């Protein structure tokens, strides 16, 4: 089911591929690969951000690093896009492509705007390749806090960027769906708006999201959740990255349907959460019953606290620990 991370290299031009194959500590340990036209090749792995020389060693000197040419960006993009940009119109509007294996390629460059609205990125000059990782079993410690009896609660995972929210969410979905750590398995409806959770490629999840999970890939949250509630009778709805004002309505709808809910949001802690327009209201009104807070304290995927959304207090018995997310 899960493709080898090394396959990602076939989407890169030979020069860049050769450098990355020999990279210090191995390609498998990388988290992000950044290509910018006329700029040095840059990689990130956990806390380290470094430039890469043509020979694959790390450097912090830009002049020694491999300089990515503009035509290489286009060539990589053509390979990533299956040589068929016409199938990626939505992706050029959203600014990312999903590769087989669930890896995500972020795009930046010259945009085409009409009447103040972004039509698409017309000329791509920067790529950010984010390698997707599964951390099977990383949700084990958390699952008991997300159910009450056999009722899945409404929960939200919050953390700063790159602390492993999506990876944890994916594993929670998998555990619920497979019935691991809960009294009985539940049907999960997954609205994967940005294709990051299940990593669908041509509609088929590339990541393990469990056997009782229905995935709506690339679907706007609100439409997707209504669709699932109407047609697939989920017991838990899962979705990524809420925080827009319209998301409040979505959560109210889920509350009405009486199903469980699991989502993620960008916030450092509950104090930060209160300041966010939509998230603050969701928190204040107690629409979420659990808030799981992650950080990068011991590396990405560190569990800090789990709060009770009703009492607005952290649950006792949760100690900061690294969950093994992104391992």
């Amino acid at each position, binding site marked *: 089911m899960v493709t080898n991370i090394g396959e990602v290299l076939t989407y890169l031009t030979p020069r860049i591929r050769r450098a990355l194959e020999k990279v210090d500590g191995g390609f498998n340990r990388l988290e992000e690969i950044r290509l910018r036209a006329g700029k040095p090749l840059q990689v990130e792995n956990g806390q380290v951000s470094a430039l890469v020389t043509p020979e694959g060693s790390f450097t912090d000197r830009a002049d020694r690093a491999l300089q990515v040419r503009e035509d290489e960006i286009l060539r990589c993009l053509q*390979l990533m896009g299956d040589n*068929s940009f016409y199938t990626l119109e939505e992706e050029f509007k959203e600014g990312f492509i999903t590769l087989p294996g669930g890896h995500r390629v972020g795009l930046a460059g010259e945009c085409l705007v009409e009447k103040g609205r972004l039509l698409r990125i017309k000329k791509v000059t920067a790529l950010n390749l984010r390698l997707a990782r599964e951390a099977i079993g990383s949700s084990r410690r958390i699952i008991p806090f997300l159910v009450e009896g056999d009722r899945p609660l409404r929960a939200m995972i919050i953390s700063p960027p790159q602390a492993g929210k999506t990876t944890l969410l994916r594993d929670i979905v998998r555990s619920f769906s497979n019935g691991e750590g809960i009294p009985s398995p539940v049907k999960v409806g997954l609205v994967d708006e940005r294709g990051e959770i299940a990593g669908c490629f041509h509609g088929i999840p590339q990541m393990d999201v469990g056997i009782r999970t229905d995935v709506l890939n690339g679907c706007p949250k609100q439409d997707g959740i209504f669709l699932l509630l109407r047609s697939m009778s989920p017991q838990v709805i899962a979705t990524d990255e809420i925080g827009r004002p319209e998301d409040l309505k979505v959560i109210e709808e889920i509350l009405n349907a009486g199903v469980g809910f699991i989502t993620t949001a960008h916030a450092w802690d509950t104090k930060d959460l209160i300041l966010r327009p939509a998230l603050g209201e969701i928190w204040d009104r107690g629409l979420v019953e659990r808030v799981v807070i992650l950080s990068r304290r011991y590396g990405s995927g560190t569990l800090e606290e789990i709060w009770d959304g009703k009492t607005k207090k952290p649950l006792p018995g949760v100690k900061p620990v690294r969950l093994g997310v992104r391992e």
Partner: protein
Amino acid sequence: MKLFGALLVLFSSTAAGWLWGTMLRKRLKTLGDLRQVFQWLETEIGYNLFPLQEAFRRIGERLRGETSIITGVFVGFLNSVQGLTAEEAWRQTVQTCREKLVLAENDWKILEDFGCTLGTTDRSHQLKAIRESLERIKIQEEEAGKTMEKNEKLYRYLGTAAGTLVILLFY
């Protein structure tokens, strides 16, 4: 001996004339197949939104006869480990097929032009390029049809006639 030589001349010139005539017919057939390819491409890309590789693979399965070599070779180049862009793969496909299919220089030009924006633009532009090539191929097909009607028999007779003339002159 002389008679044998004369017969040989007559035979080869007739054969040459026949071959010319047949090539006209073959070109018409290939152009007809290409028109079909572009019509299918219009559906596969414009409606089904299949990636190039998938679209050409499906068309190749439906296509009969010699022309299917184009789709096969193209899919092969797209798949190659060198990581070719669609434009490069198409260019190499046209080069490879030049020796294997009977087409006029103008016909090849249409195919070459088609490769320039292949896969790198949005759907509406791809459709535009496909339809444009389709129109150009239809024109060539019409022209090839007329040429064939006019000249197929002519070439065949001309071959025999030329052979006879040579024999008469040198016998």
